[in-house]
């Protein structure tokens, strides 16, 4: 299925696209900026910046409230963004898209609204040893309040989930399986369809953390038959403070709200209130309107580029990076080979702490992340305190990878014993 693209072709198109991202023209000191921290947050194209600027200059008003022109236009833009996101994810209806501040809030929404109403002592929630903290901590908090059991699918040293015990891990007590679609540390693309089918076979619901998949590959919520999908706008060319939760309609209908306030109610009496329809029931208070509009523009932008193309570009480039990085002295790559990973590579270099690597790379204009990437259990599993991570997007080129590699070689030289 994967389109074959060679690294040279990748570079030509990406070089053009770079020009649509004003920040990528920046220099760091006297060096050309090579931005390889896309898994933390992506850069924003002109199209998104323009949409947000236009929103504030021309349409700004509160939504779903006024009957004046601006309020109607702002509401239309806000709702148009919902439609655009639904289209990107192949959701049956835009009513199944709830705006949030991002993946973290989306997961907390599921924990607090669905989890509180559906989990009880004796139940099991299954996550994995590969999760971002945002898909661990909300379940630990809820477990401590409710008393269900939190279990983990173990992580193998090959960087893949160890599913050998899946039959006992997913059982009749399992009520929810919540897992990371693509690992933000290992790059591993998890077998979502298989895990979802196994969960559904015992009647469990599935929450997919799509923070690192939605920006980088086609994600079709209907083909996956996933119950909940959480993702962040800022990792897919949209603004910070934007994101969404997709959920199946009947789940959204049955879930109680988790935050109360304006916009989420139909009727408020002193004795009790009635909830608004979905998705508004979950959007209490004035939402981040400009951010939603920006995210809608980002969804359009990615759709126009084509998620298949973005995926193929990154897979080709990560193959190139995997090979080049493998040649750096003392460099060890965490996680699976290029065939099973998305466009990011975490690594360590013998005798050099990731923070020192990142600081030296910064002096050569290359931005990478160093630390535990909000995934301490993975680092514990591999017995390392931290790692460095280079994460790609469609605007990265083979030249960017070359600059990374020469920066790393420079670091090795500085630290040579």
């Amino acid at each position, binding site marked *: 299925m994967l389109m074959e693209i060679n690294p040279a072709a990748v570079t030509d198109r990406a070089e053009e696209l770079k020009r649509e991202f004003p920040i990528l023209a920046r220099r760091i*000191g006297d060096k050309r900026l090579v931005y390889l921290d896309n898994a933390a947050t992506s850069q924003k194209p002109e199209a998104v910046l323009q949409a947000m600027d236009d929103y504030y200059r021309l349409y700004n008003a509160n939504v779903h409230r006024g009957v004046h022109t601006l309020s109607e236009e702002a509401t239309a833009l806000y709702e148009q963004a919902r439609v655009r996101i639904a289209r990107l994810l192949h959701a049956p209806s835009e009513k199944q898209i709830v705006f949030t501040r991002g993946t973290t809030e989306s997961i907390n929404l599921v924990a607090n609204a669905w989890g509180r109403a559906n989990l009880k002592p004796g139940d099991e929630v299954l996550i994995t040893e590969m999760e971002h903290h945002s898909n661990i901590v909300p379940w630990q908090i809820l477990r401590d309040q409710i008393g269900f059991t939190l279990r983990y699918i173990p992580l193998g040293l090959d960087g893949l989930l160890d599913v050998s015990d899946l039959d006992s891990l997913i059982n009749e007590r399992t009520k929810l399986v919540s897992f990371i679609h693509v690992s933000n540390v290992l790059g591993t693309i998890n077998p979502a369809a298989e895990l979802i089918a196994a969960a559904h076979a015992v009647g469990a619901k599935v929450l997919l953390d799509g923070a690192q998949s939605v920006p980088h590959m086609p994600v079709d919520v209907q083909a996956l038959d996933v119950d909940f999908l959480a993702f962040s706008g800022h990792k897919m060319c949209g603004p910070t403070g934007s994101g969404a939760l997709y959920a199946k309609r009947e789940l959204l209908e049955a879930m109680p709200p988790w935050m109360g306030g304006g916009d989420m109610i139909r009727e408020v009496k002193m004795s009790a209130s009635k909830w608004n329809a979905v998705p508004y029931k979950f959007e209490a208070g004035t939402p981040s309107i400009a951010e939603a509009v920006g995210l809608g523009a980002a969804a359009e932008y990615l759709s126009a580029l084509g998620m298949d193309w973005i995926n193929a570009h990154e897979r080709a480039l990560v193959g190139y990076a995997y090979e080049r990085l493998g040649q750096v002295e003392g460099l060890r790559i965490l996680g699976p080979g290029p065939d099973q990973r998305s466009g990011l590579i975490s690594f360590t270099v013998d005798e050099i*702490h990731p*923070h*020192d690597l990142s*600081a030296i790379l910064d002096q050569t204009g290359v931005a990478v992340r160093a*630390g535990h990437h909000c995934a301490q259990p993975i680092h514990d599993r591999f017995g390392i*305190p931290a790692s460095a991570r280079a994460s790609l997007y469609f605007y990265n080129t083979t030249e960017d990878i070359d600059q990374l590699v020469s920066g790393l070689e420079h670091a090795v030289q*500085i*630290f040579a014993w």
Partner: protein
Amino acid sequence: MDDLYREAILDHYRHPRRKGHLEDADIHYYDTNPFCGDEITIELKVEDGKIVDAAFDGQGCAISQATASMLMEEILGKDIEEVKSWDKEFILDMLGIEIGPVRLKCALLPLKALKAGVWGLDEWPE
């Protein structure tokens, strides 16, 4: 451009001074930087208000580990009251480099552990 990694710092990182453990420490303090996972333990032996022996242990980046090593050399024979007055400027002078706000935390971690130890406090004295 590699000012941050001038030779003296790399030398302390590669060959840390007084790294290890004291059998009979009077002051023992462990601290971490949760942002990056750097860890430092500082152990001191005190006689008549003076530091007569010192050791550190830990793991982390070159900046935090080299700073700890340098600090151990500085501290020997010093009066504990004097150590209490050491501050950020003292560390920066000792390192002799310019340092940004993020890496400053790495450089200050050993001092933070040291001062918490000598003050007998869990909190960073402002």
